[in-house]
């Protein structure tokens, strides 16, 4: 069974986010990218399924800074094929999910994919997630917020999350696109030495993205940092000072 996992790099939210002079995008020079966490779970879920059955795991991603490392790491975990979609992803309006879904659909149509697992969302999505439009282009069903997948007899048995912790057990006819919230097990850790060894043997294929068609996302957007009227009273000092002040506050408020 062929399992395709589209992944992408997203801003690392732990870093300070800088808006560039145009005010319409994050400054690419100040931006540190990391693999979308939900995509990491999609990779893990795909490899777990492969280990239970047979088939290939194919990882595919837009060709942006840092993607080679993410692809080699996936190979070190057990992915079989690595594919970069080459194109002008850094163009100011290049990389929205509508454009990505169209390119992914073109690529996936060249494979005989039975299951497509992608991260259910990404922190910088402004035009929805990439999974649903991809499913539409491929004529496949889509279910997102999935936290467990089993495959048998041409169907996937899945667990979908609802608010409040409720879970629905669903059946989806394959081929299908699933938006992964969490893999059955946390993403495995691979030592850097294993990733380095994989770099020597694994090959990254390229697939041209051609023209990026961005229609379907909001056109002109102004970015700004949120301003809030209220902000926490900050307690300064070392751990001792902060802890002492917190105990006072807890007493004042009747918590202690």
């Amino acid at each position, binding site marked *: 069974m062929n399992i395709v996992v589209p992944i992408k790099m997203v801003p690392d939210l*732990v870093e300070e986010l800088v808006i560039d002079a145009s005010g319409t995008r994050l400054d690419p020079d100040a931006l540190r990218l990391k693999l979308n966490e939900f995509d990491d779970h999609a990779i893990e879920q795909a490899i777990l399924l492969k280990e239970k059955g047979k088939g290939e795991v194919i990882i595919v991603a837009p060709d942006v800074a840092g993607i080679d490392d993410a692809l080699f790491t996936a190979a070190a975990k057990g992915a079989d094929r690595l594919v970069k979609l080459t194109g002008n992803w850094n163009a100011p309006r290049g990389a929205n999910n509508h454009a990505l879904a169209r390119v992914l659909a073109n690529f996936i149509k060249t494979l005989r994919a039975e299951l497509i697992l992608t991260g259910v969302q990404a922190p910088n999505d402004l035009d*929805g997630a990439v999974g649903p439009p991809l499913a539409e282009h491929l004529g496949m069903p889509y*279910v997102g917020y999935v936290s467990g997948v089993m495959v048998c007899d041409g169907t996937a048995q899945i667990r979908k999350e609802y608010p409040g*912790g409720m*879970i*629905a057990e669903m059946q989806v006819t394959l081929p299908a696109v699933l938006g992964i919230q969490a893999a059955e097990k946390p993403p495995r850790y691979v030592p850097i030495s294993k990733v380095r060894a994989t770099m020597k043997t694994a090959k990254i294929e390229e697939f041209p993205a051609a023209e990026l068609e961005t229609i379907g996302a*909001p056109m002109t957007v102004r970015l700004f940092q949120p301003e809030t009227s209220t902000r926490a009273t900050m307690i300064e000092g*070392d751990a001792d000072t902060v802890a002492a002040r*917190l105990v006072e506050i807890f007493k004042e408020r009747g918590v202690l």
Partner: protein
Amino acid sequence: MNSDIYVIIEHLRGRVADISYVMLAAARETANATGGKVIAVILGHDVELLVSRLAADRVLYMEHPVFADFVSEAYQRALAGLIKEQMPRAVLFGDTTMGGDVAAWLSAHLSLPLVSACRTLRADAEHGAIKFVSQICGGKIMAEGELPTPSALVMMVPGGYKPEQGTAIQPPELVRIDAPALDDLRVTVKDYVEPAVGDVDIAKENILVSVGRGIQNQDHIEMAEALAKALGGVVAGSRPVIDQGWLAPTRLVGKSGKSVKPKLYLALGISGAPEHVEAIGDSEMIVAINTDATAPIFDLAKFGAQMDLLDLMPVLTEKVLQAKE
């Protein structure tokens, strides 16, 4: 051009989700300026009683046994026909585990633009333009723009409107509409699994020591347990901690977990992403500890300190125990 604002009502197992009322409030404000009506759309089976408090000018009720459950493919198919026929100025969906399966698919299928993570919609009565403000990158960046014309889809997050603003006293006019054929669906619901009750119900606890990514690894959970025990509370967590398997899913605070309202919510190493923040707004007092001074959690907290939670937890535990002696 149709200037009505459509709201796709989200409901599950006999209860209308709060986000539906939030969307109705946004729709009302927008429709007042566009001169259109607020039209609620409910897909369901035997749900007449659910519509009574929807603050809409009209409710379109599409009834079908399949809609007893939420099935993404059934919603997609049913709404594609309706939206294509009506082409409302805007169609609002929850940016939720339900709306997320539907809106982006419809956007591709109908070639209609989509804006997600939208917090507010404001219409300019003079020019008729609708301005959206979305909240992305874990709440650290806002994106503002004009909602494309003539028709656009919007996925809404809570925070911009109170559910009460979208609640009516008088029941709205109810109009039944036909459902399309829905007999060859590739997605079916087999069963529901109720959330495990577990040892504690975090929604009912008075003191929550809630840990996020800053806890770094499972070994440090013990330190949080010790602090919670000293305070007479329990440990909860945000999504990354649960997905790593460091805490049971019953301890999840956030969009797909529980909403909480403790006297003290001690947020340790939690950045305050919107999907977490929406579940802690009713807390009496939020205290946040984070190494990142720009973390959005500090906008919500009453008190905060910029430091590593691993440095603070043992000292705070000790001081709390001393204070109780």
